């Protein structure tokens, strides 16, 4: 039996859900160059094609991970090269509203209004992301439940611990059911149990979303990602599965796990080619 009330409970299938997918990759970048500050080129020419799945973005500090993620979030404009999201070019000046509606973004250090409760914060973000007004309460509740904050939803942000604030940040990133989810260091400040829970969420999201997670923790990538991107000095050094990355390392390379040894081997190779050290 369906009544009008039941119809309201289940999210309606919108035109966007059943529209045919007319692009090959959610994210496609060709020879992307992005400036950080006036002069420094932080992202120096990587070409990427990323589809559905969880992609781990690894690299040492200062490798350009954050700049790359901010560019993908359309917050920074590329200085050169081509960037396509959902088959639409976003490198020029143009209306990016339609593209941004389908992006979820968690900055590395995200600011928020301390007096807001978790629910108000996520609601406000849902409004900014142009989620239809009638869907906002339901979408907010789902997002808050997914990150395990339902019981703290009506507490003020300033009363939360660092890990909870980060989870609230993840909730705002997923509140608009994004097709591309960009998370910059989402596991910083999470305790080990929360990190496990987060990896599960990541695997779950990776089934139907293109997730790009930047991290400096190799084990996060091993546990949750199907694809690894290794960035060093703004260049893409390696792209492949975690197994392929582990295979690149030998017993002579520093690291506690095969994956860490592969990581340091690939980084060392890139430095040798550059000849900087």
């Amino acid at each position, binding site marked *: *039996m369906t009544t009008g009330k039941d119809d309201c409970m289940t999210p309606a299938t919108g035109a966007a859900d059943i529209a045919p997918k007319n692009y090959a990759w959610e994210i496609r970048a060709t020879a992307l160059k992005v400036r*950080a500050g006036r002069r420094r080129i932080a992202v120096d020419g990587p070409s990427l094609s990323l589809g559905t799945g969880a992609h781990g973005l690894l690299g040492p500090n200062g490798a350009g991970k954050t700049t790359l993620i901010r560019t993908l979030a359309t*917050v*920074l404009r590329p200085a050169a090269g081509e960037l396509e999201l959902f088959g639409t070019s976003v490198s020029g000046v143009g209306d990016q*509203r339609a593209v941004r509606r389908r992006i979820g973004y968690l900055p590395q250090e*995200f600011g928020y*209004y301390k007096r807001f409760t978790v629910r108000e914060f996520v609601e406000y973000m849902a409004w900014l*992301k142009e989620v239809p007004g009638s869907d906002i309460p339901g979408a907010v509740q789902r997002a808050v439940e997914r990150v395990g904050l339902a019981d703290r939803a009506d507490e003020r942000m300033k009363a939360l611990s660092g890990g909870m604030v980060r989870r609230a940040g993840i909730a705002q990133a997923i509140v608009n059911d994004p097709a591309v989810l960009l998370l910059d260091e989402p596991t910083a400040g999470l305790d080990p149990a929360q990190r496990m829970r987060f990896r599960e969420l990541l695997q779950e999201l990776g089934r139907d979303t293109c997730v790009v997670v930047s991290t400096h923790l190799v084990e996060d990538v091993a546990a949750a990602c199907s694809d690894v991107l290794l960035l060093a000095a703004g260049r893409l050094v390696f792209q492949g599965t975690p197994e392929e990355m582990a295979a690149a390392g030998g017993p002579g390379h520093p690291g506690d796990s095969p994956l860490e040894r592969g990581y340091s081997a690939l980084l060392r190779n890139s430095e040798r080619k550059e000849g900087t050290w």
Partner: protein
Amino acid sequence: MRVEHASARLVHDYARGGTGMAADELWALEAHLEACGICRERLAAAVATEAPEITALLGAVRSDLDSRLDAAAPAPKRLRRRARLPRWATPVMVPWLAMTAGLTLIALLLDFLNPDFGEVSPVLLLAPALPLAGVAAAWSPGLDPAHELTSSAPRAGLYLLLRRTASVLTVLVPVLFAGGRLTGVTVAEWLLPTLAFTVAALALGGAIGVGRAAVVLGAVWAAVILAPALATQRTPLALRPDQLPAWALLLALGAGIVIARRGAYSVLRNPR
């Protein structure tokens, strides 16, 4: 039309768990039960008599749940107004707006306490610079902690900036209007410079960031309006009534630049 109902045997078998029923009978019965309230009522009665253990189980679950449901606090009735407010002005703008209103009141007080300040009205002097603080707080990474999150959202850009600017003016204009009435300054004399400075902050902000634009315009205000007024104790040249067409021109020019460069407001200005 006469509707055929399920037989008592079927209903009783179903109530006992339906293990001995043929699959097609089970399907047909369930399809009928979904649509027929009379048979659901008969089933309920049958469950009570045929399967008392189920009734007992349901009763136990319900009594367990009832106590816990009573303890759970209902979701607080929230004020919708509160949720709508940030759509017009962010919480960080509130202290700046309060400061602006306070400054206007101080200027008014000065005017009344010190009538021999010269012919110049402090309200008129202050008016162009007043919206700058609020506009800067509305759209700059330094003053708004959520600026990065905001600027990545689809609603970011000129639309949201204008919304916030509108809320700054909504607070400011009534205060200035009252001040203008009390000190005898005509509306056009203070309104045009105020709007021109606001629009100039937005236009310049598209190029160097709204926060920096507010600082630059604050300096311009101090040099062109405040300093001459303090030096000569008279209304500065720029604020004389015969300069109003120039202010109107500036306003139109600024608005034109803002509209032409509307795409510039949706990306971050100074990458950190």
